[in-house]
């Protein structure tokens, strides 16, 4: 346990020293503040910020995570010559990255809201959902980044795969969903849509945000089905479980590879 703490501590100081994380937090701070200044109230700021969170956080997390693990190779090799077991090291590396990234986002996006406040109580729910999904997306895409970095020896290849994976989840997946919807337009698609959304963490976060924005009224029957599902205990359990699996699965797989990896 102490070793893990030491690894995390080292990682944290390293990440902060690289100033990346400060820039990251500053980016969210400036953008959120700008949205407040130019967009008017907290409703518009939340809406624009949610669009940003769904695109930027996965991208930064997966790219930064991949790069970080490649760059930390020398450090990893050095530590492995010491009596440090691999599980501890891997856990430390992951926590040491996911933690500051989440904190950077929370501080950057949260501070302007803490300062300006929210206009309505319902906005507070949306804000919490937004911050929570931001943190979860950070955890998920950092885990994916570690999986990629452990799988591919070649740095350039790894980065390429990272970008592709982001592109798939952020853009292509929705295109495929749309194709599917069109192909099966004659069938009731509400239930399959729920399953499809659970399979992509970005879509999952987007839908949760949509529902808190009260957009479900636009959706007629579809909205009613979704609201019922995500409002029920089963829905909340399933969506939380889905996001949990999205963190745990790549992390577990990555650790298994890391354990056997020949450095």
């Amino acid at each position, binding site marked *: 346990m102490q070793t893990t703490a030491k690894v995390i501590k080292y990682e944290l100081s390293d990440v902060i020293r690289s100033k990346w994380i400060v820039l990251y937090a500053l980016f969210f701070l400036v953008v959120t503040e700008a949205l407040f200044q130019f967009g008017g109230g907290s409703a518009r700021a939340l809406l624009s910020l949610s669009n940003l969170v769904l695109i930027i956080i996965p991208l930064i997390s997966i790219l930064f995570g991949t790069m970080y693990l490649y760059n930390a190779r020398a450090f990893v090799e050095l530590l492995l010559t010491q009596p440090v077991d691999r599980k501890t090291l891997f856990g430390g590396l992951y926590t040491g990255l996911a933690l500051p990234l989440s904190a950077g986002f929370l501080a950057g996006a949260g501070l302007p809201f803490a300062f300006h406040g929210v206009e309505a109580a319902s906005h507070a729910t949306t804000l919490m959902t937004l911050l929570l999904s931001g943190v979860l997306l950070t955890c998920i895409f950092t885990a994916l980044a570690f999986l990629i970095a452990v799988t591919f020896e070649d740095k350039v290849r790894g980065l390429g795969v990272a970008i592709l994976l982001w592109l798939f989840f952020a853009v292509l997946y929705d295109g495929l969903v749309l194709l599917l919807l069109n192909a099966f*337009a004659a069938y009731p698609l509400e239930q399959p849509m729920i399953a499809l959304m659970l399979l992509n963490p970005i879509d999952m976060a987007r839908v949760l945000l949509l529902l808190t924005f009260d957009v479900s009224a636009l959706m007629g029957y579809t909205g009613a089905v979704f609201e019922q599902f995500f409002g029920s205990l089963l829905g909340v359990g399933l969506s939380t479980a889905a996001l949990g699996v999205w963190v745990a699965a790549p992390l577990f797989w990555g650790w298994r590879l890391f354990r056997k990896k020949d450095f």
Partner: protein
Amino acid sequence: MTRFAPISCFLVALLVLGRPALAQDVVVSPEGPVKSLSAAIEQAPPGGRIVVREGVYREPTVVVDKPVTITGEGQAVLDGQGERQIMTVTADSVTVRGLIFRNVGVSFVEDRAGLKVDDARQCVIEDNRFEDTFFGIYLAKTAHCRVAGNVLQGTGATETQSGNGIHLWYSKDIEVENNTIRGHRDGIYFEFVEDSRIAGNLSEVNLRYGLHFMFSDRCQYRDNVFRNNDAGVAVMYTKHVEMSGNRFEHNWGSAAFGLLLKDITDSRVEDNLFVKNTIGVYAEAANRIRFERNHFQENGWAVKIMANSLDNVFTRNNFIANTFDVATNSSRKHRSRFEQNYWDNYEGYDLDRDGYGDVPFRPVRLFSIIVEKNEPSLLLLRSFFIDVLDAAERVVPSITPETLADEKPVMKRIL
């Protein structure tokens, strides 16, 4: 001269106070001698006045069958005890003012009302309160009446168990002004009503529509507020309607409309405010309507116009922060025109600085067409992929209706 002083003083007092019962007034009060309104009507001469003193009156349905003026003083309550209609007016020139109608009770057999005017003219219904009346004010086969300043509060829980607030059937030249209607099935309901003016009313939290009319030609709707009604406002099968200065606010739900126009022709919709409705204006088979200087803000769809609507004109309207500006169900040729509106989604430029954008604006997004065809796809709203798709379609339109475009979009918001 001095001899007349006391008399003139009395006359002046009478003019100033106005209220004290005159000799020919019939006074109804719980202490008597006249203890019921029905008895008072029997006693009163045609054209006489009846003053109802403070108190709660429980009596069989009051039938007003001669021209009288009935005025309530203080809390003059007519209680229907949940089992009957309270007042029926069958004579011309009846005025009912300042009474409280309470507790009519639900009926599935007849349309009971707090106050029903049946086949009469020149009635005036002013400043009354209607509490928990099934139907509030019900005018059937009336003409030249005035319904003003009434407050109607219904407590129905479901559509089937509640009646309409102000219900007009087969009437002409009616003024409905400054009433407040809450918690009824339809706030204001018109069927076969002509040449009437509806102004300054507030109709909110009703179970179905804030305003609902059919076959009611040549009516004017001014400065009313329709807010938070379960299904918004729906108007149908009518010609020559004029709606101006009304506010349609927060009619939010999967089947709610700010203003639903079905088979409305040759009408004008001007200077209205549509804020936070699921659908601001829904037009189906609506023809030759002029939408001018309206303000559409934060609606799901600002305007949904079906392809069977012809020759409508949208000009000098503001479209601000709507999820979809305009949606339609067909990508073929459109026969409605959009010109000189302000669109906050417009990304064009104005090089010659004449206040109008140099490139046309196409308010129909590709995504809105996709959603119209396949509802579940709305779940992809705000997806990055969809934004890319919309942008591509905007550059080279192929699916969105080519004719549905604002050729001269205004650069600055219209005040």
